[in-house]
Protein backbone atom coordinates (compact mmCIF):
# COMPACT_ATOMS: atom_id res chain seq x y z
CA UNK A 1 0.00 0.00 0.00
CA UNK A 2 1.08 3.54 -0.65
CA UNK A 3 0.76 4.78 2.90
CA UNK A 4 3.31 3.93 5.54
CA UNK A 5 1.71 2.03 8.33
CA UNK A 6 2.11 3.69 11.68
CA UNK A 7 1.78 2.81 15.34
CA UNK A 8 -1.03 0.94 16.99
CA UNK A 9 -4.11 3.11 17.05
CA UNK A 10 -6.65 0.60 18.36
CA UNK A 11 -6.13 -2.29 20.73
CA UNK A 12 -8.85 -4.62 21.96
CA UNK A 13 -7.91 -6.74 24.95
CA UNK A 14 -9.71 -9.85 26.11
CA UNK A 15 -13.14 -8.78 24.89
CA UNK A 16 -15.93 -11.12 25.96
CA UNK A 17 -19.53 -10.43 25.05
CA UNK A 18 -22.57 -12.53 25.87
CA UNK A 19 -26.31 -12.10 25.36
CA UNK A 20 -27.94 -14.07 28.08
CA UNK A 21 -26.53 -17.54 27.53
CA UNK A 22 -25.26 -16.89 24.01
CA UNK A 23 -21.55 -16.10 23.93
CA UNK A 24 -20.95 -13.80 20.98
CA UNK A 25 -17.29 -13.15 21.71
CA UNK A 26 -14.83 -14.94 23.96
CA UNK A 27 -11.55 -13.35 24.97
CA UNK A 28 -10.73 -11.69 21.65
CA UNK A 29 -7.60 -9.56 21.43
CA UNK A 30 -5.97 -7.88 18.47
CA UNK A 31 -4.63 -4.53 17.40
CA UNK A 32 -4.97 -2.19 14.46
CA UNK A 33 -2.19 0.06 13.22
CA UNK A 34 -2.67 3.54 11.94
CA UNK A 35 -3.18 3.90 8.18
CA UNK A 36 -3.58 0.18 7.60
CA UNK A 37 -6.45 -1.77 6.13
CA UNK A 38 -7.39 -4.52 8.61
CA UNK A 39 -9.92 -7.14 7.67
CA UNK A 40 -12.02 -9.23 10.06
CA UNK A 41 -13.23 -12.43 8.49
CA UNK A 42 -15.01 -15.53 9.61
CA UNK A 43 -18.11 -17.62 9.07
CA UNK A 44 -21.56 -16.26 9.78
CA UNK A 45 -22.26 -15.88 13.46
CA UNK A 46 -18.57 -15.68 14.29
CA UNK A 47 -19.08 -12.42 16.09
CA UNK A 48 -17.61 -10.00 13.56
CA UNK A 49 -20.40 -7.42 13.69
CA UNK A 50 -20.52 -7.79 17.46
CA UNK A 51 -16.82 -6.95 17.55
CA UNK A 52 -17.38 -3.77 15.58
CA UNK A 53 -20.32 -2.95 17.79
CA UNK A 54 -18.09 -3.25 20.84
CA UNK A 55 -15.43 -1.05 19.32
CA UNK A 56 -17.78 1.80 18.73
CA UNK A 57 -19.86 1.40 21.82
CA UNK A 58 -23.13 0.03 20.55
CA UNK A 59 -22.63 -3.04 22.71
CA UNK A 60 -20.89 -3.09 26.07
CA UNK A 61 -18.69 -6.16 26.52
CA UNK A 62 -18.85 -7.92 29.85
CA UNK A 63 -15.09 -8.19 29.98
CA UNK A 64 -12.15 -6.63 28.30
CA UNK A 65 -10.78 -3.23 27.43
CA UNK A 66 -10.55 -1.10 24.35
CA UNK A 67 -7.67 1.30 23.87
CA UNK A 68 -8.06 3.93 21.18
CA UNK A 69 -5.51 6.68 20.57
CA UNK A 70 -3.87 5.90 23.87
CA UNK A 71 -7.03 6.11 25.98
CA UNK A 72 -8.39 2.95 27.58
CA UNK A 73 -12.05 2.25 28.14
CA UNK A 74 -14.05 -0.56 29.60
CA UNK A 75 -17.24 0.90 28.24
CA UNK A 76 -17.33 2.93 25.11
CA UNK A 77 -20.38 4.94 24.25
CA UNK A 78 -21.35 5.54 20.62
CA UNK A 79 -21.19 9.27 21.14
CA UNK A 80 -17.71 9.18 22.62
CA UNK A 81 -16.53 6.90 19.85
CA UNK A 82 -17.83 9.38 17.30
CA UNK A 83 -16.16 12.28 19.04
CA UNK A 84 -12.86 10.44 19.15
CA UNK A 85 -12.95 9.85 15.43
CA UNK A 86 -14.44 6.41 14.91
CA UNK A 87 -17.04 6.16 12.18
CA UNK A 88 -18.80 3.12 10.79
CA UNK A 89 -21.16 1.78 8.23
CA UNK A 90 -23.76 -0.88 8.89
CA UNK A 91 -24.40 -4.25 7.40
CA UNK A 92 -28.09 -3.62 7.09
CA UNK A 93 -28.03 -0.03 6.02
CA UNK A 94 -28.90 2.38 8.75
CA UNK A 95 -29.73 5.30 6.54
CA UNK A 96 -32.28 7.90 7.50
CA UNK A 97 -34.97 6.89 5.09
CA UNK A 98 -36.99 10.06 5.46
CA UNK A 99 -34.18 12.34 4.27
CA UNK A 100 -32.41 13.06 1.02
CA UNK A 101 -28.87 11.94 0.21
CA UNK A 102 -27.55 15.41 0.92
CA UNK A 103 -29.29 15.62 4.28
CA UNK A 104 -28.11 12.16 5.27
CA UNK A 105 -24.51 13.06 4.66
CA UNK A 106 -24.98 16.44 6.32
CA UNK A 107 -26.01 14.67 9.53
CA UNK A 108 -22.49 13.35 9.61
CA UNK A 109 -21.33 16.92 10.12
CA UNK A 110 -23.49 17.42 13.19
CA UNK A 111 -20.63 16.86 15.60
CA UNK A 112 -18.83 19.82 14.14
CA UNK A 113 -21.75 22.20 14.13
CA UNK A 114 -21.59 24.76 16.85
CA UNK A 115 -24.44 27.21 16.48
CA UNK A 116 -27.25 26.87 18.96
CA UNK A 117 -30.98 26.44 18.60
CA UNK A 118 -31.92 30.07 18.72
CA UNK A 119 -29.52 31.13 16.01
CA UNK A 120 -30.68 28.29 13.85
CA UNK A 121 -34.28 29.29 14.31
CA UNK A 122 -33.55 32.79 13.15
CA UNK A 123 -31.06 31.63 10.51
CA UNK A 124 -28.92 34.64 11.13
CA UNK A 125 -25.31 35.18 10.09
CA UNK A 126 -23.32 32.54 11.95
CA UNK A 127 -25.91 29.79 11.43
CA UNK A 128 -26.17 30.48 7.73
CA UNK A 129 -22.42 30.64 7.24
CA UNK A 130 -21.81 27.43 9.12
CA UNK A 131 -24.47 25.65 7.11
CA UNK A 132 -22.81 26.74 3.85
CA UNK A 133 -19.33 25.72 5.03
CA UNK A 134 -20.48 22.25 5.86
CA UNK A 135 -22.44 22.03 2.64
CA UNK A 136 -19.24 22.72 0.73
CA UNK A 137 -17.42 19.95 2.56
CA UNK A 138 -20.23 17.48 2.00
CA UNK A 139 -20.24 18.32 -1.69
CA UNK A 140 -16.62 17.22 -1.84
CA UNK A 141 -17.62 13.87 -0.43
CA UNK A 142 -20.47 13.64 -2.92
CA UNK A 143 -18.01 14.28 -5.73
CA UNK A 144 -15.65 11.65 -4.38
CA UNK A 145 -18.40 9.04 -4.28
CA UNK A 146 -19.80 10.10 -7.63
CA UNK A 147 -23.40 10.51 -6.48
CA UNK A 148 -23.94 14.13 -7.52
CA UNK A 149 -27.02 13.35 -9.57
CA UNK A 150 -28.82 11.92 -6.56
CA UNK A 151 -28.17 14.51 -3.92
CA UNK A 152 -31.77 15.63 -3.55
CA UNK A 153 -33.33 12.17 -3.90
CA UNK A 154 -34.81 10.57 -0.79
CA UNK A 155 -32.48 7.70 0.01
CA UNK A 156 -35.31 5.22 0.22
CA UNK A 157 -35.72 5.50 -3.54
CA UNK A 158 -32.15 4.68 -4.45
CA UNK A 159 -30.93 1.25 -5.52
CA UNK A 160 -29.01 -0.75 -2.95
CA UNK A 161 -25.54 -0.07 -4.30
CA UNK A 162 -26.05 3.69 -4.18
CA UNK A 163 -27.49 3.49 -0.69
CA UNK A 164 -24.31 1.79 0.41
CA UNK A 165 -22.34 4.70 -1.01
CA UNK A 166 -24.47 7.16 0.92
CA UNK A 167 -23.82 5.15 4.08
CA UNK A 168 -20.12 5.44 3.40
CA UNK A 169 -20.46 9.14 2.63
CA UNK A 170 -22.18 9.77 5.92
CA UNK A 171 -19.38 8.04 7.78
CA UNK A 172 -16.81 10.03 5.82
CA UNK A 173 -18.51 13.30 6.69
CA UNK A 174 -17.34 12.74 10.23
CA UNK A 175 -13.70 13.03 9.06
CA UNK A 176 -12.88 9.89 11.00
CA UNK A 177 -9.45 8.72 12.05
CA UNK A 178 -10.68 5.13 11.86
CA UNK A 179 -13.44 3.78 9.71
CA UNK A 180 -15.30 0.57 10.54
CA UNK A 181 -16.93 -0.97 7.49
CA UNK A 182 -19.42 -3.77 8.07
CA UNK A 183 -19.64 -5.83 4.88
CA UNK A 184 -19.46 -2.83 2.55
CA UNK A 185 -19.74 -4.99 -0.51
CA UNK A 186 -22.55 -7.29 0.48
CA UNK A 187 -25.15 -7.67 -2.21
CA UNK A 188 -23.17 -5.88 -4.89
CA UNK A 189 -22.35 -7.00 -8.39
CA UNK A 190 -18.82 -7.05 -9.80
CA UNK A 191 -18.76 -3.48 -11.07
CA UNK A 192 -20.18 -2.09 -7.87
CA UNK A 193 -17.60 -4.05 -5.88
CA UNK A 194 -14.83 -2.64 -8.00
CA UNK A 195 -16.14 0.87 -7.40
CA UNK A 196 -16.33 0.30 -3.66
CA UNK A 197 -12.82 -1.15 -3.56
CA UNK A 198 -11.60 1.89 -5.42
CA UNK A 199 -13.24 4.21 -2.88
CA UNK A 200 -11.80 2.31 0.07
CA UNK A 201 -8.30 2.28 -1.37
CA UNK A 202 -8.53 5.95 -2.30
CA UNK A 203 -9.60 6.79 1.22
CA UNK A 204 -6.69 4.91 2.64
CA UNK A 205 -4.25 6.38 0.11
CA UNK A 206 -5.30 10.02 0.00
CA UNK A 207 -6.52 10.63 3.51
CA UNK A 208 -4.66 7.96 5.41
CA UNK A 209 -7.84 6.73 7.06
CA UNK A 210 -7.36 3.56 9.07
CA UNK A 211 -9.85 1.02 7.85
CA UNK A 212 -11.26 -2.00 9.65
CA UNK A 213 -13.51 -3.99 7.44
CA UNK A 214 -15.64 -7.08 7.67
CA UNK A 215 -15.90 -8.85 4.37
CA UNK A 216 -16.85 -12.25 3.01
CA UNK A 217 -15.38 -11.95 -0.46
CA UNK A 218 -11.96 -13.55 0.02
CA UNK A 219 -10.65 -12.12 -3.22
CA UNK A 220 -11.29 -8.61 -1.99
CA UNK A 221 -9.91 -9.31 1.46
CA UNK A 222 -6.69 -10.82 0.22
CA UNK A 223 -6.24 -8.03 -2.33
CA UNK A 224 -6.74 -4.90 -0.33
CA UNK A 225 -5.99 -5.67 3.29
CA UNK A 226 -2.67 -5.34 5.07
CA UNK A 227 -3.54 -7.69 7.90
CA UNK A 228 -6.39 -10.02 8.69
CA UNK A 229 -8.08 -11.25 11.89
CA UNK A 230 -10.06 -14.47 11.70
CA UNK A 231 -12.91 -15.17 14.10
CA UNK A 232 -14.86 -18.37 14.55
CA UNK A 233 -17.60 -18.96 17.13
CA UNK A 234 -16.55 -15.79 18.90
CA UNK A 235 -12.89 -16.77 19.27
CA UNK A 236 -9.86 -15.54 17.41
CA UNK A 237 -8.30 -18.32 15.37
CA UNK A 238 -5.95 -16.42 13.11
CA UNK A 239 -4.12 -13.10 12.92
CA UNK A 240 -1.56 -11.97 10.38
CA UNK A 241 -0.95 -10.97 6.79
CA UNK A 242 -3.30 -12.37 4.14
CA UNK A 243 -0.65 -14.90 3.06
CA UNK A 244 -0.10 -16.13 6.61
CA UNK A 245 -3.80 -16.48 7.27
CA UNK A 246 -4.44 -18.27 3.98
CA UNK A 247 -2.08 -21.04 4.97
CA UNK A 248 -3.22 -21.27 8.62
CA UNK A 249 -4.58 -24.77 9.25
CA UNK A 250 -7.13 -23.68 11.84
CA UNK A 251 -8.57 -21.17 9.40
CA UNK A 252 -8.77 -23.75 6.64
CA UNK A 253 -10.54 -26.12 9.00
CA UNK A 254 -13.07 -23.49 10.06
CA UNK A 255 -13.97 -22.62 6.51
CA UNK A 256 -13.78 -25.98 4.89
CA UNK A 257 -15.02 -27.98 7.83
CA UNK A 258 -13.35 -30.79 9.77
CA UNK A 259 -13.89 -34.46 8.96
CA UNK A 260 -15.56 -36.27 11.84
Amino acid at each position, binding site marked *: MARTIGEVILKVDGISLAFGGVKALTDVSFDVREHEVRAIIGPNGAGKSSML*NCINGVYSPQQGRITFKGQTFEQMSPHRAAEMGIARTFQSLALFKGMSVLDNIMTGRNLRMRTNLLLQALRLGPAEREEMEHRAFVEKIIDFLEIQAYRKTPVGRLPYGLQKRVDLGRALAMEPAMLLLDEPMAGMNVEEKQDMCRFILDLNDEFGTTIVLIEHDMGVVMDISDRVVVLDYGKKIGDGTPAEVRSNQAVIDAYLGVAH
Partner: protein
Amino acid sequence: MSRNLKRNWPVYALGALLAIGLVLPLATGASALGFYIEVMLGGLMSGVLYSLVALGFVLIFKASGVFNFAQGAMVLFAALALARLSEVMPLYVAFGLAILIMIVFAWLVERLVLRHLVNQEGVVLLMATLGVTYFLDGFGQTVWGSDIYKIDLGLPKEPMIVGEQLFQGGILISKEDLFAAAIAALLVMCLAVFFQKTPTGRALRAVADDHQAAQSIGIPLNRIWVIVWAVAGFVALVAGMIWGAKLGVQFSLQLIALKALPVVILGGLTSVPGAIIGGLVIGVGEKFAEVFLGQYLARTFDLAGGGIEYWFAYVLCLFFLLVRPEGLFGEKHIDRV
Protein backbone atom coordinates in the same frame (compact mmCIF):
# COMPACT_ATOMS: atom_id res chain seq x y z
CA MET B 1 -24.74 -3.86 44.13
CA SER B 2 -25.86 -7.36 43.34
CA ARG B 3 -27.40 -7.90 39.95
CA ASN B 4 -30.78 -8.71 41.47
CA LEU B 5 -30.90 -5.61 43.59
CA LYS B 6 -29.90 -3.49 40.66
CA ARG B 7 -32.78 -4.76 38.64
CA ASN B 8 -35.43 -5.14 41.27
CA TRP B 9 -35.00 -2.13 43.51
CA PRO B 10 -38.12 -0.40 42.15
CA VAL B 11 -40.19 -3.39 43.22
CA TYR B 12 -38.74 -3.25 46.71
CA ALA B 13 -39.24 0.50 46.80
CA LEU B 14 -42.87 0.09 45.82
CA GLY B 15 -43.30 -2.56 48.48
CA ALA B 16 -41.80 -0.26 51.06
CA LEU B 17 -43.96 2.65 49.97
CA LEU B 18 -47.09 0.53 50.15
CA ALA B 19 -46.16 -0.84 53.54
CA ILE B 20 -45.56 2.62 54.92
CA GLY B 21 -48.67 4.04 53.32
CA LEU B 22 -50.84 1.25 54.66
CA VAL B 23 -49.48 1.29 58.17
CA LEU B 24 -49.14 5.02 58.72
CA PRO B 25 -52.81 5.96 59.11
CA LEU B 26 -53.27 3.28 61.73
CA ALA B 27 -50.01 3.99 63.49
CA THR B 28 -50.57 7.72 63.77
CA GLY B 29 -54.09 7.13 64.93
CA ALA B 30 -55.38 9.31 62.12
CA SER B 31 -58.15 6.88 61.47
CA ALA B 32 -60.40 4.50 63.29
CA LEU B 33 -59.83 0.87 62.52
CA GLY B 34 -63.29 0.33 61.14
CA PHE B 35 -63.00 3.20 58.71
CA TYR B 36 -59.55 2.05 57.74
CA ILE B 37 -60.84 -1.38 56.82
CA GLU B 38 -63.64 0.15 54.81
CA VAL B 39 -61.21 2.27 52.82
CA MET B 40 -59.04 -0.79 52.30
CA LEU B 41 -61.96 -2.84 51.07
CA GLY B 42 -63.16 -0.03 48.85
CA GLY B 43 -59.70 0.20 47.38
CA LEU B 44 -59.53 -3.53 46.81
CA MET B 45 -62.88 -3.51 45.10
CA SER B 46 -62.06 -0.72 42.72
CA GLY B 47 -58.75 -2.48 42.22
CA VAL B 48 -60.55 -5.59 41.09
CA LEU B 49 -62.53 -3.56 38.61
CA TYR B 50 -59.40 -1.89 37.23
CA SER B 51 -57.89 -5.33 36.88
CA LEU B 52 -60.77 -6.46 34.75
CA VAL B 53 -60.28 -3.66 32.30
CA ALA B 54 -56.52 -4.08 32.40
CA LEU B 55 -56.96 -7.75 31.54
CA GLY B 56 -58.46 -6.77 28.22
CA PHE B 57 -55.43 -4.62 27.42
CA VAL B 58 -53.01 -7.35 28.37
CA LEU B 59 -54.80 -9.98 26.31
CA ILE B 60 -54.70 -7.99 23.14
CA PHE B 61 -51.14 -6.88 23.67
CA LYS B 62 -49.99 -10.37 24.52
CA ALA B 63 -51.47 -11.82 21.40
CA SER B 64 -51.06 -9.10 18.81
CA GLY B 65 -48.61 -6.55 20.13
CA VAL B 66 -51.26 -3.88 19.79
CA PHE B 67 -51.89 -1.52 22.64
CA ASN B 68 -55.61 -1.19 22.46
CA PHE B 69 -56.55 2.28 23.49
CA ALA B 70 -60.12 1.44 22.60
CA GLN B 71 -60.52 -0.98 25.49
CA GLY B 72 -62.35 1.64 27.52
CA ALA B 73 -64.70 2.43 24.70
CA MET B 74 -65.30 -1.30 24.35
CA VAL B 75 -66.24 -1.52 28.02
CA LEU B 76 -68.68 1.33 27.59
CA PHE B 77 -70.09 -0.03 24.37
CA ALA B 78 -70.59 -3.50 25.79
CA ALA B 79 -72.20 -2.09 28.91
CA LEU B 80 -74.51 0.10 26.87
CA ALA B 81 -75.52 -2.83 24.72
CA LEU B 82 -76.22 -4.95 27.76
CA ALA B 83 -78.15 -2.22 29.54
CA ARG B 84 -80.34 -1.33 26.60
CA LEU B 85 -80.96 -4.89 25.47
CA SER B 86 -81.86 -6.00 28.99
CA GLU B 87 -84.63 -3.42 28.91
CA VAL B 88 -86.47 -5.53 26.39
CA MET B 89 -85.32 -9.08 27.20
CA PRO B 90 -84.14 -11.15 30.16
CA LEU B 91 -80.64 -10.39 31.39
CA TYR B 92 -78.99 -13.62 30.32
CA VAL B 93 -80.40 -13.37 26.80
CA ALA B 94 -79.14 -9.81 26.60
CA PHE B 95 -75.76 -11.01 27.84
CA GLY B 96 -75.56 -13.65 25.14
CA LEU B 97 -76.56 -11.13 22.50
CA ALA B 98 -73.98 -8.69 23.78
CA ILE B 99 -71.29 -11.34 23.44
CA LEU B 100 -72.34 -11.82 19.84
CA ILE B 101 -72.15 -8.11 19.23
CA MET B 102 -68.63 -7.99 20.64
CA ILE B 103 -67.59 -10.87 18.40
CA VAL B 104 -68.90 -9.03 15.37
CA PHE B 105 -67.02 -5.96 16.54
CA ALA B 106 -63.84 -7.98 16.87
CA TRP B 107 -64.25 -9.33 13.37
CA LEU B 108 -64.83 -5.87 11.96
CA VAL B 109 -61.81 -4.40 13.71
CA GLU B 110 -59.59 -7.13 12.36
CA ARG B 111 -60.95 -6.85 8.86
CA LEU B 112 -61.07 -3.09 8.52
CA VAL B 113 -58.22 -1.90 10.70
CA LEU B 114 -55.69 -4.47 11.84
CA ARG B 115 -55.29 -6.30 8.59
CA HIS B 116 -54.13 -3.16 6.83
CA LEU B 117 -51.69 -2.06 9.48
CA VAL B 118 -49.81 -5.31 10.00
CA ASN B 119 -46.27 -4.09 9.68
CA GLN B 120 -46.58 -0.69 11.22
CA GLU B 121 -44.89 0.23 14.42
CA GLY B 122 -46.56 0.39 17.78
CA VAL B 123 -47.30 4.08 17.78
CA VAL B 124 -49.22 3.93 14.54
CA LEU B 125 -51.33 1.06 15.83
CA LEU B 126 -51.90 2.98 19.04
CA MET B 127 -53.20 5.92 17.08
CA ALA B 128 -55.39 3.63 15.03
CA THR B 129 -56.97 2.29 18.21
CA LEU B 130 -57.46 5.88 19.27
CA GLY B 131 -59.44 6.34 16.09
CA VAL B 132 -61.42 3.21 16.85
CA THR B 133 -62.13 4.65 20.30
CA TYR B 134 -63.62 7.80 18.89
CA PHE B 135 -65.64 5.86 16.37
CA LEU B 136 -66.96 3.39 18.91
CA ASP B 137 -67.79 6.24 21.25
CA GLY B 138 -69.87 8.07 18.72
CA PHE B 139 -71.41 4.91 17.32
CA GLY B 140 -72.37 3.52 20.71
CA GLN B 141 -74.07 6.69 21.76
CA THR B 142 -75.80 7.07 18.42
CA VAL B 143 -77.22 3.58 18.54
CA TRP B 144 -77.84 3.05 22.23
CA GLY B 145 -78.32 6.62 23.39
CA SER B 146 -76.40 8.78 25.80
CA ASP B 147 -78.41 8.84 29.00
CA ILE B 148 -77.48 6.99 32.13
CA TYR B 149 -78.74 3.46 32.07
CA LYS B 150 -79.06 0.83 34.70
CA ILE B 151 -78.01 -2.75 34.74
CA ASP B 152 -79.92 -4.87 37.17
CA LEU B 153 -77.96 -7.93 38.17
CA GLY B 154 -80.61 -9.12 40.51
CA LEU B 155 -78.39 -8.74 43.52
CA PRO B 156 -79.65 -7.26 46.76
CA LYS B 157 -78.62 -3.67 46.96
CA GLU B 158 -78.27 -3.32 50.69
CA PRO B 159 -74.75 -3.83 51.92
CA MET B 160 -73.88 -6.33 54.56
CA ILE B 161 -72.73 -5.06 57.86
CA VAL B 162 -70.17 -7.23 59.57
CA GLY B 163 -68.25 -7.13 62.73
CA GLU B 164 -70.66 -4.88 64.59
CA GLN B 165 -69.30 -6.16 67.83
CA LEU B 166 -65.68 -5.40 66.99
CA PHE B 167 -65.94 -2.08 65.27
CA GLN B 168 -68.16 0.85 65.90
CA GLY B 169 -71.04 0.68 63.48
CA GLY B 170 -69.58 -2.33 61.78
CA ILE B 171 -68.02 -2.51 58.37
CA LEU B 172 -70.08 -2.07 55.23
CA ILE B 173 -69.49 -4.63 52.55
CA SER B 174 -71.44 -4.44 49.35
CA LYS B 175 -72.73 -7.72 47.99
CA GLU B 176 -72.21 -6.44 44.48
CA ASP B 177 -68.55 -5.90 45.18
CA LEU B 178 -68.16 -9.42 46.47
CA PHE B 179 -69.87 -10.70 43.37
CA ALA B 180 -67.51 -8.62 41.25
CA ALA B 181 -64.47 -10.02 42.99
CA ALA B 182 -65.73 -13.55 42.55
CA ILE B 183 -66.44 -13.02 38.85
CA ALA B 184 -63.02 -11.48 38.33
CA ALA B 185 -61.30 -14.39 40.01
CA LEU B 186 -63.28 -16.86 37.92
CA LEU B 187 -62.46 -15.00 34.74
CA VAL B 188 -58.76 -14.93 35.49
CA MET B 189 -58.70 -18.64 36.20
CA CYS B 190 -60.54 -19.42 32.98
CA LEU B 191 -58.17 -17.23 31.00
CA ALA B 192 -55.13 -18.79 32.60
CA VAL B 193 -56.38 -22.25 31.70
CA PHE B 194 -57.23 -21.07 28.20
CA PHE B 195 -53.78 -19.68 27.56
CA GLN B 196 -51.81 -22.48 29.05
CA LYS B 197 -53.75 -25.61 28.21
CA THR B 198 -55.64 -25.13 24.98
CA PRO B 199 -54.14 -25.23 21.45
CA THR B 200 -55.73 -21.88 20.66
CA GLY B 201 -54.12 -20.38 23.71
CA ARG B 202 -50.77 -21.73 22.60
CA ALA B 203 -51.30 -20.26 19.17
CA LEU B 204 -52.08 -16.92 20.74
CA ARG B 205 -48.86 -16.96 22.68
CA ALA B 206 -46.94 -17.88 19.55
CA VAL B 207 -48.43 -14.97 17.69
CA ALA B 208 -47.57 -12.59 20.50
CA ASP B 209 -44.00 -13.71 20.31
CA ASP B 210 -43.38 -13.42 16.61
CA HIS B 211 -45.98 -12.76 13.94
CA GLN B 212 -43.95 -14.01 11.04
CA ALA B 213 -42.71 -17.14 12.72
CA ALA B 214 -46.24 -17.99 13.78
CA GLN B 215 -47.48 -17.47 10.23
CA SER B 216 -44.75 -19.65 8.83
CA ILE B 217 -45.94 -22.60 10.87
CA GLY B 218 -49.43 -22.17 9.61
CA ILE B 219 -51.15 -20.24 12.36
CA PRO B 220 -53.84 -18.13 10.74
CA LEU B 221 -52.95 -14.67 11.97
CA ASN B 222 -56.22 -13.08 11.03
CA ARG B 223 -58.36 -15.64 12.77
CA ILE B 224 -56.22 -15.41 15.89
CA TRP B 225 -56.68 -11.69 16.03
CA VAL B 226 -60.43 -11.99 15.74
CA ILE B 227 -60.40 -14.49 18.59
CA VAL B 228 -58.26 -12.27 20.78
CA TRP B 229 -60.30 -9.18 20.22
CA ALA B 230 -63.45 -11.20 20.83
CA VAL B 231 -62.07 -12.49 24.12
CA ALA B 232 -61.04 -8.97 25.05
CA GLY B 233 -64.52 -7.88 24.09
CA PHE B 234 -65.93 -10.52 26.42
CA VAL B 235 -63.72 -9.30 29.22
CA ALA B 236 -64.85 -5.77 28.43
CA LEU B 237 -68.45 -6.91 28.64
CA VAL B 238 -67.94 -8.48 32.05
CA ALA B 239 -66.10 -5.41 33.26
CA GLY B 240 -68.78 -3.16 31.83
CA MET B 241 -71.51 -5.22 33.42
CA ILE B 242 -69.98 -4.98 36.85
CA TRP B 243 -68.97 -1.34 36.64
CA GLY B 244 -72.30 -0.48 35.10
CA ALA B 245 -74.26 -2.23 37.78
CA LYS B 246 -72.28 -0.34 40.37
CA LEU B 247 -72.12 3.13 38.87
CA GLY B 248 -74.73 3.16 36.17
CA VAL B 249 -73.81 2.99 32.51
CA GLN B 250 -72.67 6.38 31.42
CA PHE B 251 -69.98 8.10 29.45
CA SER B 252 -67.60 8.48 32.35
CA LEU B 253 -67.24 4.69 32.39
CA GLN B 254 -64.84 5.16 29.57
CA LEU B 255 -62.54 7.34 31.56
CA ILE B 256 -61.97 4.41 33.86
CA ALA B 257 -60.12 2.77 31.02
CA LEU B 258 -57.69 5.64 31.06
CA LYS B 259 -57.10 4.65 34.65
CA ALA B 260 -56.42 1.10 33.56
CA LEU B 261 -53.41 2.17 31.47
CA PRO B 262 -51.20 2.74 34.50
CA VAL B 263 -52.35 -0.60 35.89
CA VAL B 264 -51.16 -2.32 32.77
CA ILE B 265 -47.83 -0.55 32.81
CA LEU B 266 -47.30 -1.26 36.47
CA GLY B 267 -48.15 -4.91 36.13
CA GLY B 268 -46.33 -5.41 32.90
CA LEU B 269 -47.90 -5.29 29.47
CA THR B 270 -47.60 -9.00 28.91
CA SER B 271 -48.60 -10.33 32.28
CA VAL B 272 -52.04 -11.45 33.37
CA PRO B 273 -51.09 -11.78 37.05
CA GLY B 274 -49.47 -8.39 36.65
CA ALA B 275 -52.78 -6.88 35.59
CA ILE B 276 -54.46 -8.31 38.68
CA ILE B 277 -51.79 -7.29 41.15
CA GLY B 278 -51.27 -3.96 39.46
CA GLY B 279 -54.98 -3.28 39.67
CA LEU B 280 -55.13 -4.09 43.35
CA VAL B 281 -52.05 -2.03 44.15
CA ILE B 282 -53.38 0.97 42.32
CA GLY B 283 -56.91 0.55 43.62
CA VAL B 284 -55.78 0.47 47.22
CA GLY B 285 -52.98 2.98 46.79
CA GLU B 286 -55.27 5.46 45.10
CA LYS B 287 -57.94 5.26 47.76
CA PHE B 288 -55.44 5.56 50.55
CA ALA B 289 -53.69 8.47 48.89
CA GLU B 290 -56.95 10.24 48.30
CA VAL B 291 -58.41 9.71 51.75
CA PHE B 292 -55.42 9.93 54.04
CA LEU B 293 -52.74 11.75 52.09
CA GLY B 294 -55.28 14.08 50.54
CA GLN B 295 -56.55 15.24 53.90
CA TYR B 296 -53.03 15.84 55.10
CA LEU B 297 -52.03 17.81 51.99
CA ALA B 298 -55.20 19.86 52.00
CA ARG B 299 -54.62 20.88 55.57
CA THR B 300 -50.92 21.57 55.22
CA PHE B 301 -50.80 23.24 51.85
CA ASP B 302 -54.18 24.80 51.65
CA LEU B 303 -55.15 23.04 48.46
CA ALA B 304 -58.65 23.26 47.11
CA GLY B 305 -59.80 19.76 47.87
CA GLY B 306 -58.18 16.42 47.05
CA GLY B 307 -58.29 14.95 43.62
CA ILE B 308 -55.10 12.98 44.14
CA GLU B 309 -56.94 10.01 42.75
CA TYR B 310 -56.74 11.77 39.45
CA TRP B 311 -53.04 11.40 39.05
CA PHE B 312 -51.75 8.98 41.68
CA ALA B 313 -51.91 6.01 39.36
CA TYR B 314 -50.19 7.89 36.58
CA VAL B 315 -47.35 9.25 38.63
CA LEU B 316 -46.73 5.81 40.09
CA CYS B 317 -46.57 4.31 36.66
CA LEU B 318 -44.36 7.19 35.49
CA PHE B 319 -41.87 6.23 38.17
CA PHE B 320 -41.88 2.68 36.89
CA LEU B 321 -41.63 3.77 33.28
CA LEU B 322 -38.44 5.54 34.14
CA VAL B 323 -36.76 2.86 36.19
CA ARG B 324 -38.38 -0.39 35.20
CA PRO B 325 -40.49 -0.08 32.06
CA GLU B 326 -41.38 -3.72 31.99
CA GLY B 327 -43.36 -3.24 35.17
CA LEU B 328 -43.58 -5.77 37.95
CA PHE B 329 -43.99 -8.90 35.89
CA GLY B 330 -43.39 -8.00 32.26
CA GLU B 331 -40.60 -9.18 29.99
CA LYS B 332 -37.50 -7.14 29.51
CA HIS B 333 -36.85 -5.97 25.96
CA ILE B 334 -33.49 -6.20 24.29
CA ASP B 335 -32.97 -4.11 21.19
CA ARG B 336 -30.47 -5.59 18.80
CA VAL B 337 -28.77 -3.64 16.07
